């Protein structure tokens, strides 16, 4: 059992390094066109946003429409520090990343304490309102540049941007894998499965809600700092509820509670409009259609059977390949 786990881990590490190496070479040699290079950075912070929201929506089962708020807090806190600290780029980024994450986590903690009693639609509406509230607040806090926001945030070149974005993504994935497979992860699954039963065995539901919101906000805050360093400015218009919806679409399309799904969906949704420029105008329409299709497909037993069959086939193919390899040995 243990050996298998280690082998799987080594496999993941090799895959992670290989992907990094390939993209790094593509960027450094200039094979990847400029527009694609910035796309790679954009993908990294959207992946972090989708993964962190999945913790709330997929694992805990609470609908949050205000994820942009935590993203905004992280972006503003981290970038304000970066602007005024005057440190060299790399230490500046790392400290800003932590400051952004921690500030967002504090706000996430406070907010989750305030909304503990809310569920379902009410929670969704309050989080939505909270997102807009944060946006108005940053406009009036002195030193944050009002509606123009902060400009002149230190900037990465494309390669650095990709490297740091990638590193943050990997760190977030490692944290989430460990968290969801831990005792805490199983407890959260139990809460989502049946809240009354969870309470009846002595699980402190409130504590776990606060924990999930805090961890998730921390990650969204780091995504905000990545964004600020990438764009070299942050303004209130970057954090409208559209961002929250967009990230929610990624979570739903990728599958509730599936980390892999969130990563893939984030990549596709960020990349598609850039690749199909003409389609960009219809982005919201395409999201809506994709969401409805997904929901209809997921609730249809025929589709579930089809999916199971396809997966079965995939597994049998994999098995026959490994069998061939074994024989070859």
């Amino acid at each position, binding site marked *: 059992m243990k050996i298998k786990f280690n082998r799987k881990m080594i496999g993941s590490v090799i895959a992670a390094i290989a992907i990094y190496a390939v993209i790094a070479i593509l960027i450094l040699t200039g094979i990847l066109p400029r527009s694609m290079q910035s796309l790679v950075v954009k993908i990294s912070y959207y992946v972090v946003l989708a993964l962190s929201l999945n913790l709330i929506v997929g694992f805990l089962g609470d609908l949050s429409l205000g994820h942009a708020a935590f993203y905004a807090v992280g972006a503003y806190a981290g970038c304000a520090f970066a602007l005024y600290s005057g440190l060299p780029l790399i230490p500046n980024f790392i400290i800003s990343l932590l400051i952004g994450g921690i500030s967002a986590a504090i706000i996430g903690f406070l907010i989750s304490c305030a909304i503990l009693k809310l569920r379902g639609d009410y929670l969704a509406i309050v989080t939505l309102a909270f997102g807009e509230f944060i946006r108005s607040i940053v406009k009036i806090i002195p030193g944050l540049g009002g509606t123009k926001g902060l400009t002149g945030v230190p900037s990465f070149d494309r390669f650095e941007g990709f490297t740091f974005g990638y590193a943050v993504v990997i760190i977030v994935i490692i944290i989430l894998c460990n968290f969801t497979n831990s005792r805490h992860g*199983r407890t959260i*699954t*139990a809460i989502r*499965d*049946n809240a*009354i*039963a969870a309470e*009846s*065995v*002595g699980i402190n539901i409130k504590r776990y809600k606060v924990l999930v919101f805090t961890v998730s906000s921390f990650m969204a805050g780091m995504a905000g700092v990545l964004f600020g360093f990438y764009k070299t400015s942050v303004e209130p218009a970057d954090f409208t509820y559209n961002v929250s919806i967009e990230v929610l679409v990624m979570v739903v399309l990728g599958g509730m509670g599936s980390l892999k799904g969130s990563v893939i969906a984030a990549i596709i949704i960020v990349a598609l409009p850039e690749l199909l420029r003409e389609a960009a105008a219809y982005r919201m329409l395409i999201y809506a259609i994709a969401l409805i299709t997904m929901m209809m497909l997921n609730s249809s037993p025929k589709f579930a059977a089809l999916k199971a069959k396809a997966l079965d086939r995939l597994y049998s193919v994999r098995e026959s390949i490994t069998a061939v390899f074994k024989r070859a040995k």
Partner: protein
Amino acid sequence: MFTPLLQVENLEVNYGVIRALKGVSFEVGTGEVVALIGANGAGKTTILHTVTGLLPAKSGSIVYDGHDLLKTPAHKIVSMGMAHVPEGRRIFGALTVYENIILGAYTRRDKKEIEESIELVYTHFPRLKERTKQIAGTLSGGEQQMLAMGRALMSKPKIILMDEPSMGLSPLYVSEIFSIIEEISKSGTTVLLVEQNAKKALSIADRAYVLETGTVVLSGDADDLMHNDSVRRAYLGE
């Protein structure tokens, strides 16, 4: 002298403007089986939810083993030795039978003692032992009820509160569930049993309270109530 393990006095609970409990008092002594019987909507589930901290009370008091339960949050009540088997088979449907049982020991740490409790649960419910790896949501209704009871026993409770364990079960299963409740009681656990199946409940209870629209209208020894005319007419269908 009779010292109650659980004492509820003048409990009032409202849902918004609806008065669900209008001053309910009852007590449960150590080692007893006490039944709360009453028709749909009488307030039985409301009582259990208030005792276990899932609902706030408007007024009154709930004292358990020296603790004021109205000031105790729900998740702390389990570790004080009170287990709750909620109405309607509240199991973790996506988890296996074994995982459900293990979650019942959520508040305990000692691995060896937990193992012993699992064995104890399996002796009460051999059916569960045969199905440890099955996804709990695919169990039959009666098996799910057994799982919910087994899970509650995993916290090693002094008192166990059961909300309509016989609901929706075939007569054979009902008899099985009730004989297991008797076993649990014999092994030293105090039982507070909420039931609509008054006949079965009275047959295993020591004492009982009859509840009507949020008030206790009758109480006494189970045997006496079994022979009480108005109880026979209203709850035993005679």
